[in-house]
């Protein structure tokens, strides 16, 4: 009979460094390229270092709207012509704004790269911002926001971010904006954002796939060489408001089948020295199936399908959040469990075996995230956007595995703040409100749904 003992394992393979070639054009546009000929496709990301972090709350949604408008028309193509050309080439063009950047991404077979690149360059360099499409996009966005009021999980996210950052901070409103801010958005605002921030010196291009570097650089020179611009002054981000004591923001959703719970607070920026320790810490807390939050809330207490946590680190500061969708009558218990685990990670010595499991999950899992041209492009983008070292990904495994229990403890002490957290709950108030009051989770504040 076969031995059914746990199989032994050999040494892990190493992720070999990719050959990244770079070139800076005379206008400041940076190109980073990895030639990968084993698949006949190409992924290109053109990344503008401007995103929703630049939207003050009255203009929330502006960066996202710029992204939406780029392929709604150029000086030589209508929205349908753009879509048609891309679709016929079997290409995929996706444009979106995040907090720190706007990414124009193209996925296409290598043999169709040239015509697809032309369309891509056109939408970046010559968007025409047609008024009729803008009005339509505004209406679409406002309808979407209206629809989102019925989605408990989205409402919970929005209430949390506003609770943590307040109404005066760019991070207090979602990237897509609010009903008020989108209603107030003018086409002039959108154009002005584009003109101010879509500058060659503020942009980089990442190309991964079956390309020849020299030929590609020449192609990009032809398409983008005449793009002239200016340098952008970096704007500082206001600090997150201090949260004196923990509090619970409760949104009543009569008849809700579950309670969506979120717990969060501010976080450091992506350049924090504690980055690797935080990754390991978060994996332990809520970043994997075998994390504390998921095992406790799902597998032990069986009150949820899943629980998780994340440190969302941006160029300037960021947000920590933990969340789950739980049985309504377990909402208070679940919030308590999250806060309890956050406190334990600060108060108790870090268990070495638990830490190692988390570290290995991150470290040994890295090759899985480098399978496709799209994966590689995304990682190169992250490296360039956050100013990480050229050997960052090739050293990632070693740096994760080198994190110590003391470092995880220190990261928890510095960056987990259960006493200053905000909780957001979207649930049927009749089922849970009394339970919340009796739990010493902080002041309970009834909040209206706003999106």
């Amino acid at each position, binding site marked *: *009979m076969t031995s*059914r*003992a*746990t*199989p032994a*394992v050999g040494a*892990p*393979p190493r*992720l070999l460094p990719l050959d990244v070639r770079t070139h800076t054009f005379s206008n400041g546009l940076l190109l980073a390229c990895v030639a990968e000929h*084993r*698949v006949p*496709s190409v992924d290109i990301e053109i990344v503008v270092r401007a995103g929703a972090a630049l939207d003050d709350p009255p203009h929330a949604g502006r960066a996202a709207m710029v992204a939406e408008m780029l392929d709604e028309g150029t000086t030589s193509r209508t*929205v*349908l012509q753009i*879509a*048609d050309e*891309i*679709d*016929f*080439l*079997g290409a*995929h063009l996706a444009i979106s704004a995040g907090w720190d950047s706007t990414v124009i991404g193209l*996925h296409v*077979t290598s043999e169709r790269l040239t015509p697809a690149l032309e369309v891509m360059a056109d939408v970046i360099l010559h968007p025409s911002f047609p008024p009729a499409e803008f009005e*339509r996009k505004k*209406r*679409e966005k*406002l*309808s979407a926001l*209206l*629809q989102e*009021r*019925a*989605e*408990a999980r989205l409402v919970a996210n929005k209430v949390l971010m506003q609770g943590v950052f307040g109404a005066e901070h760019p991070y207090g409103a979602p990237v897509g904006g609010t009903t008020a801010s989108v209603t107030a958005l003018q086409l002039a605002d959108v154009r002005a954002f584009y003109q101010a921030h879509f500058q060659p010196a503020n942009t980089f291009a990442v190309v991964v796939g079956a390309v020849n570097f020299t030929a590609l650089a020449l192609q990009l020179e032809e398409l983008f060489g005449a793009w002239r611009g200016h340098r952008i002054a970096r704007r500082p981000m206001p600090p997150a408001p201090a949260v004196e004591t923990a509090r619970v923001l409760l949104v009543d959703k*009569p008849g809700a*089948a*579950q309670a*969506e719970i979120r717990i969060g607070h501010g976080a450091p920026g992506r350049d924090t020295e504690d980055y690797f320790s935080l990754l390991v810490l978060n994996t332990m807390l809520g970043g*994997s*199936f*075998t994390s504390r939050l998921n095992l406790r809330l799902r*597998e032990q207490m*069986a*009150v*949820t*399908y899943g629980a998780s946590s994340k440190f969302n680190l941006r160029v300037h500061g960021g947000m920590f959040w933990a969340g789950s*969708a739980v*049985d309504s009558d377990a909402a208070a218990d679940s919030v308590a469990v999250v806060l309890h685990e956050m406190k334990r990670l600060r108060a108790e010595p870090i268990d070495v075996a638990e830490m190692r499991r988390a570290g*290995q*999950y991150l*470290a*040994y*899992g890295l*090759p*899985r995230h*480098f*399978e*496709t*041209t799209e994966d590689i492009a995304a990682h190169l983008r992250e490296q360039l956007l956050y100013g990480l070292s050229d050997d960052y990904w090739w050293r990632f495994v070693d740096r994760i595995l080198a994190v110590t229990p003391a470092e995880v403890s220190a990261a928890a002490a510095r960056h987990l703040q259960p006493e200053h957290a905000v909780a957001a709950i979207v649930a049927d108030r009749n089922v849970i409100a009394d339970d919340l009051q009796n739990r010493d989770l902080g002041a309970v504040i009834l909040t209206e749904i706003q999106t």
Partner: protein
Amino acid sequence: MIQIPFEQYQLANGLRVILSPEPRTPVVAVNLWYKVGSRNERPGRTGFAHLFEHMMFQGSSHVPDTAHFAYIEKAGGSLNGSTWLDRTNYYETVPAHYLELALWLESDRMAYLLPAMTQEKLDNQRDVVKNERRWRVDNQPYGDWDERLQMMMYPPEHPYHHSVIGSMEDLDAASLQDVETFFRTYYAPNNAVLTICGDYDGAHVKALVEQYFAEIPAGPAIPPIPGALEVAPVLGEEKRVVVEQDISLPRTFLAFRVPPYGDERFYAADVAATILGTGKASLLHRTLVLKNQTAQDVAAYAFPIVVGAAILVVLATAAETVEAERVEADLLSALDALRTVSDDDVTRAVNLIAAKHLTELQRVDQRADAFSMMTTLFDDPARVNTEIDRYRAVNTADVRAFANEFLGADNRGVLTYIPQSAS
């Protein structure tokens, strides 16, 4: 031309094995399809195949209760499973040197799940699944759309009539005896396909498969799918259901019975769905969203299911202030236009499908799943490479003929969600 290399063979116990090398990245995907899904559930036990899938992660004779996930995550792998109408799959992607771990885990639960099964585990996972239902369906606007469409489009005796997630009542009724019976009936090597795709050692992989799976005895013959499997090619009428929910915008779903996946006419249905709903230039988007501005969003999808008939679904969410009736009228008008669809629309759709196909096959986990699917449903792993040719063979006349035959008033279910009237 797609030419992904693979090898196929079968163990004496009936387990079909597909091996497909991919040395590019040092990872390997292990994928198992069991040919059992919600279609195999008997009345009063809806949702059982999915509940059973959860039980498969709770340990087996040589794998401690909570260890399955931990073993894979500690190895830097990802894993999951899913239940569908026609099948249940289990998959993990691990660093290449952990292949043996994955095979050990999969074979142990295929062979030795029952000794580790307890009432406590069943009760626990029942609660998890009920919460999954609440999260996916009950607490989501329009959340029960697929359940309602299945009820409308298939008669009660058809195995696709009930939902994959099942009802709360049936989940409550599931017993440990049910678990045992289900396992013995369906979870056998002769009812399974194992695919290994990635950076494995070609010299040793077969020996590993032999080592872990060969000793598992074949199970009894698989019973036929319960119920009445045949349905008329078209519904024969229009059915209508209106649901009031706590939502702001109405959403309309139209469903049509179409030939089942595998039938050559299914490909025309899938091309039609792409023409209708994929991309800004698609028929529904350019008409309802861009031109008429009566819809907020649109989509179209052909379900790739094999028993009796499949369904094609189109949907649109009304823009603010637009009535559901107007959206439905616009949808019907666009579907009508499909009867005279242009060559351009067909070419665009086929190009999009081909591109999507190629992109998906770039990942070893998706590639492995594709091999398992083609082997389970059609006993033909080569279809991974030839499937795209079936799409390329669809021409304008095919799509027009499909629209004429299947997208009429005698073959549709109309499901409309409207905001709750103020009481």
